[in-house]
């Protein structure tokens, strides 16, 4: 026996699920531009009645099911693309960071369109030459002195500017990057708990998944992370773990995520997760630390040429420059200072331009120029400026300039290649999870029609009952 109102229930489920479908369509369109949103689809299923499991189920020929149910609303997302996106994003962020800072370093050192240390060395050469043909004349001697002074000031200027960049990057790392990162990790841990609770009561918190995925994307910019899931029988089902290297940053077994902090050890900056040093593989933080720590060829094992490399190079330059010219000036120091930071011309020279010895034999006014020629020669000659560099002073400056330029060029290329990869993966991801207006319009029409059709069936059923109730058995009335 078919229950009288069974048809109404079936049609009602059709009307309701069409409404839910339209709701979801509305939500998709509304969130089309929202960052991190994944499109959602209605998972509809026909209700199947099994007469063997239900006590009062109709038996036999009337086993035709009981309408439709909205099983769940699922989001469309490809986890594998998420993993690929995050890996590429970390790499891109590292290169982009290095490119950015190297650009600043280049702004300081590059003499392609501006004058710098290299040009000043040429000027000193020129003025020493003029002094060599006009030895003994104070006006030429003072021109040499002003050139030398410009060199010391420029070395100091380079040094201070580089230190400034280093300080700004460090501050940025400490007060913005790490603060943000800790906040993100904290939010992920909190979302883990909320999601677990929601899932326990049988909900599918799609929007919370999106929020958590977006945070993971953001974290992946700073660090290379591995995201772990838990199986259905785990007490942490629904939560995600976040790992960097061997260290768990977000561990559902722990109540709070670890806090990341910046520490200085043996003159090197390091990131600590709690009390353990974090092994950064790639990511923006790795890029920043390389810039802040990298000693290039000054390190035992050649490493990235960061700001310390340039600072040490300037120190070596200043020390060698002072050593060379002081030794030529017969014991009277022309230059003072222990490195680039306090590199300056001596008080003696500052007071008297003729402090520079044009000759080592007799009277300085005699017009002999032998010592000036020695200085010209010293400027051209090869010196061991660092343990690994033998060459002239101006070659050293040129090498410094080209080191920064070549690295910038290299990392610009790598960043742009990585950017292409990130964009490609992001497009693929978007192609899976993004909202398509055409699709949603089709869905809209589909659900609207489904609704109309169900309503029409309802009317038909109603009319049928009308016949039974009002028009049956009234013959001859």
């Amino acid at each position, binding site marked *: 026996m078919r229950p009288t109102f069974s048809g109404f229930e079936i049609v009602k489920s059709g009307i309701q699920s069409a409404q839910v479908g339209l709701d979801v369509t509305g939500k998709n369109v509304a969130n089309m531009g929202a960052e991190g949103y994944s499109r959602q689809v209605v998972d509809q299923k026909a209700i199947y009645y099994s007469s063997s499991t239900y006590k009062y189920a109709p038996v036999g020929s009337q086993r035709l099911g009981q309408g439709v149910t909205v099983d769940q609303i699922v989001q469309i997302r490809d986890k594998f693309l998420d993993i690929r996106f995050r890996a590429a994003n970390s790499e891109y962020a590292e290169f982009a960071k290095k490119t950015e800072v190297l650009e600043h370093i280049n702004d300081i050192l590059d003499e392609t369109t501006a004058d710098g240390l290299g040009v000043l060395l040429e000027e000193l050469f020129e003025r020493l030459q003029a002094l060599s*043909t006009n030895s003994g004349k104070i006006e030429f001697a003072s021109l040499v002195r002003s050139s030398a002074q410009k060199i010391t000031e420029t070395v100091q200027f380079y040094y201070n500017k580089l230190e400034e960049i280093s300080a700004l990057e460090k501050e940025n790392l400490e007060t913005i990057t790490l603060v943000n990162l800790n906040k993100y990790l904290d939010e992920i841990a909190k979302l883990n708990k909320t999601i677990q609770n929601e899932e326990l009561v049988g909900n599918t918190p799609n929007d919370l998944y999106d929020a958590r995925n977006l945070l993971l994307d953001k974290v992946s910019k700073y660090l290379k992370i591995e995201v772990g899931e838990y199986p259905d029988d785990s007490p942490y089902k629904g939560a995600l773990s976040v790992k960097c290297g061997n260290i768990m940053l977000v561990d559902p077994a722990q109540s709070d995520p670890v806090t990341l902090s910046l520490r200085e050890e043996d003159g090197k900056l390091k990131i600590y997760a709690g009390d353990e040093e974090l092994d950064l593989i790639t990511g923006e933080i790795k890029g920043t630390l390389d810039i802040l720590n990298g000693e290039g060829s000054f390190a035992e094992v050649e490493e990235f040429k960061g700001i310390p490399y340039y600072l040490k190079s300037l120190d070596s330059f200043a020390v060698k420059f002072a050593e060379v010219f002081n030794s030529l000036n017969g014991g009277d120091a022309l230059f003072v200072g222990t490195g680039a930071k306090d590199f300056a011309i001596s008080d003696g020279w500052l007071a008297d331009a003729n402090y520079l010895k044009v000759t080592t034999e007799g009277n300085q006014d005699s017009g002999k*120029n032998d010592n000036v020629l020695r200085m010209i020669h010293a400027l051209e000659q090869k010196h061991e400026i660092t343990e690994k560099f033998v060459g002239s002073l101006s070659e050293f400056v040129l090498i410094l300039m080209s080191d920064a330029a070549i690295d910038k060029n290299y990392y610009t290329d790598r960043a742009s290649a990585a950017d292409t990869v990130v964009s490609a993966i992001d497009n693929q991801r978007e192609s899976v999870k993004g909202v398509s207006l*055409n699709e949603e319009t089709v869905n809209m029409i589909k659900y609207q029609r489904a609704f109309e059709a169900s309503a029409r069936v309802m009317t038909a059923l109603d009319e049928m009952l009308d016949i039974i109730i009002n028009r049956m058995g009234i013959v001859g009335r």
Partner: protein
Amino acid sequence: MRLTNNIISKNYLKSLNKSLNELSQMNTLIAAKRKYMNFADDPINAMRAMKVRQNINKIDVYVENLREAADIFSQYESVISNVNNIVSDALVQVSQGMNGTSDATARYTIAQSLRAFQDAILAAVNTQFAGKYIFSGETVGVPPFSISEEEDTKGMLLYKGMLVDNISEVTEKRYIDIGLGLSLDEYSNVIPNTARDIAVTGLELLGCGVDEDGYTKNLYNMLGIIAKKFEENDMSGMDVYYEKLQKIADNVRVQYVGVGEKTEYINFFLERLDSEQFNLKVKQSRLEGLDLAEAITTFGELELAYNACLQIGTKILQPSLLDFLD
């Protein structure tokens, strides 16, 4: 691939930005007429160009040094020509004085004019040029010649305080760097063939030391001796003195020719540097300079691309099925 509106707009914005970037970059390059603006844009060529620039600047310096030397030599030349004239006059005067028809008064007068020649020669070799005593060898800051006031050598010529008759050879060197690869020996002295010696001492011009017969080889001193003999009207051995004076006069002429050779060397070198400079400048413009015709064509293409990109923008982002619903 499933395309969504977001993908289209994201990609579109990316391309538009790229196109605008390229356009702006080209614009900057054209304004600066350069192939690149930063070392990092083209490190290898920038490095080469930087070296070329250094070499050009160096050559400028060498050219400046050579010009200075040329100036000195031309001054030197005019002084020698003066001295040469004086010597010729002196020879005429001396031969007149030796003539038997000259009496003591006439010889005394000749002696006076020889003394005047001596003064003129002294003034000539103590000439300053641009604040430098050009005949002072390596020490251009001090006047080279003076006259002895000592009892036994009174009136004799001194070079930096030494009697010229006691100086047997000149070893003074004053080098300038003209790009021959200036190098120093183990005593930190310039190796001669790596720089140009421009030292000129008056000694080469006037002569120094004494010859095998014990006569002075110096013009000033010789004139002094002859003048003295004329003053005393002592004609003994005058033939020898005349002969020696002629030898000294020959030396002056040799110097005259020699300085011409030195100037020629400098001019030759200047020309060489000039052509080197030209080659370097060609190289520099090849490394750094922008081919404007090509660049402006590229700029036009980029501009067109950007405009096209903008025009497409208004169309690509618009329609969806939604727009066609009734």
